[in-house]
């Protein structure tokens, strides 16, 4: 009898243990099933691809300036990579993606990445750790600030450049990223579509470039003597690395590794190729098939197709890329005619390319490509086009006004420009005490 009781007891204990173990297993299985290793791997690789685009912009721009400013121009990209990476961890990510405050900005809840752990955040990416999403977005914040540097090459004071970059990321990038991408952001709530940053990255950087170029003024001798690009091969190398990294930029923005990423990958390449081809033909029509022009066309097409990349078909990408090249080409001629020294045409390439891409999303988007997106004008929905145009106008206006004021304030306090002699010697020697080529 005593034996029997103890046997029954042990049987119950055994069952209880199995039950507890099973429950625990089920719980951890549920936890694990949220994170998809394929998705996570793709987003991490994409993050590294976007990181490569940052010094690529430096090389792309560096080749187009004069020899005496080559290092300074490349340094902009490196310095911002260091500076904004830290800003992002400290509070940038929280401002952009933190808990919504009135639709306009993220709260400071996630300051220092407080609470940003390994659990996925379904608001942004349901199958990868929040940490991976945060890091992917960090590279976007960095590269957007780097894009602007083409506006003020060969004449900005390095200290002023650092202050401008830090404040611009905080006052312009973080809010716009929140409006468009943050959970609760007012443009996102309104239904504005921006797959990988046509508004957040390209329009904001391109328009801000004009604003700061107007404040800092033209380079000494601009319009009077020729300022030749000192190394077009360096620029081509930059363009190639940009194209390569752009697969991470756009296809990575699917934040999954399946059909949507594959579609965005194909759309991205097609957009860049179509614009490169169109630019080559345009330059040929005017003079000769230009190498620098073809590379520029590629970058313009990639920028234009960015906001649309997860919503349109590869055939639509041909239209988006080709039209982008034509608009951007003539925008560049217009800028030169107006004698504005927005030195490396960030506005014509990214401002115009990005704006066209965002508007084109309202024309070519289809839920056949992305059920989470929307239909555009060609698929019977004119509402999206209106929203896209409004979003472009808002991003355009906010970027211009805030950047203009910011640049004015910096100019009035610490001064934006180097002295005349420092400019004549070149920023490599005057700002860094180094020479690119000895």
């Amino acid at each position: 009898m005593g034996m029997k009781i103890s046997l029954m007891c042990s049987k119950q204990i055994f069952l209880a243990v199995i039950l507890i173990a099973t429950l625990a297993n089920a719980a951890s299985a549920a936890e694990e099933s949220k994170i998809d290793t394929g998705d996570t791997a793709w987003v991490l690789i994409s993050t590294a691809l976007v990181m490569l685009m940052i010094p690529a912009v430096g090389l792309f721009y560096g080749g187009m300036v004069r020899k005496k400013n080559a290092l300074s121009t490349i340094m902009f990209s490196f310095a911002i990579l260091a500076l904004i990476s830290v800003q992002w961890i400290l509070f940038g990510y929280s401002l952009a993606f933190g808990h919504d405050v009135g639709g306009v900005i993220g709260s400071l809840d996630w300051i220092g990445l407080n609470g940003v752990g390994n659990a996925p955040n379904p608001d942004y990416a349901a199958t990868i750790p929040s940490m991976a999403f945060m890091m992917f977005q960090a590279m976007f914040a960095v590269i957007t600030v780097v894009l602007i540097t083409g506006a003020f090459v060969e004449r900005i004071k390095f200290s002023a450049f650092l202050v401008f970059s830090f404040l611009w990321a905080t006052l312009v990038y973080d809010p716009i990223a929140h409006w468009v991408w943050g959970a609760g952001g007012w443009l996102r709530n309104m239904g504005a579509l921006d797959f990988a940053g046509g508004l957040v990255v390209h329009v904001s950087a391109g328009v801000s470039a004009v604003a700061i170029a107007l404040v800092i003024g033209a380079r000494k001798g601009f319009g009077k003597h020729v300022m030749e690009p000192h190394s077009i091969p360096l620029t081509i190398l930059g363009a190639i690395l940009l194209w390569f990294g752009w697969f991470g930029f756009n296809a990575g923005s699917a934040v999954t590794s399946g059909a949507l990423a594959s579609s965005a990958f194909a759309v991205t390449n097609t957009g860049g190729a179509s614009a490169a081809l169109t630019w080559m033909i345009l330059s040929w029509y005017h003079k000769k098939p230009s190498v620098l022009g073809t590379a520029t066309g590629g970058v313009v097409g990639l920028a234009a197709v960015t906001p649309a990349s997860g919503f349109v078909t590869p055939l639509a990408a041909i239209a988006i890329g080709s039209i982008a090249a034509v608009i951007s080409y003539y925008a560049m001629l217009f800028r030169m005619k107006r004698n504005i020294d927005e030195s490396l045409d960030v506005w014509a390439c990214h401002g115009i390319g990005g704006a066209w891409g965002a508007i084109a999303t309202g024309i070519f988007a289809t839920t056949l490509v992305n059920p989470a997106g929307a239909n555009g004008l060609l698929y019977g929905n004119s509402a999206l086009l209106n929203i896209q145009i409004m979003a472009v106008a808002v991003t355009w206006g906010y970027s211009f006004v805030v950047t203009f004021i910011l640049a004015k304030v910096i100019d009035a306090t610490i001064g934006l420009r180097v002295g005349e002699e420092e400019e004549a010697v070149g920023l490599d020697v005057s700002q860094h005490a180094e020479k690119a080529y000895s």
Partner: protein
Amino acid sequence: MSLNMQKKLMLEVNKMKKIEAVIRPENLESVRVSLEKKGIVSMTVLEVQGRGRQKGVCLQWRAGEYCVEFLPKLRIDMVVPDDKLETAIEAITAVAKTGKNGDGKIFVYPVEEVVRVSTGERGKEAI
């Protein structure tokens, strides 16, 4: 003999000319070979920019064009004894001439003295 007279005599003995020949860069090798055939081997080559009647060339930016007012040229500097001057000029023009604008120019100047650094030789011996 006064110092002045001594100097004059030296000049009589060491009559030499400096030639500065501006040529098209692509003609350097044929000019060198042509000069070498006439026994002229010493020269200094400089990369220079210049313009003449042909003026500059128009290139293109990403969109639109710009004009560079100076073209890349090479300048050959050399010193020859007077009796080899015409030979040298003929050797250069024979191969550097295309008959079009931009073939370059040859300038000739008198030379006072030449010193070979390794041996200390002077005058024609040092060329």
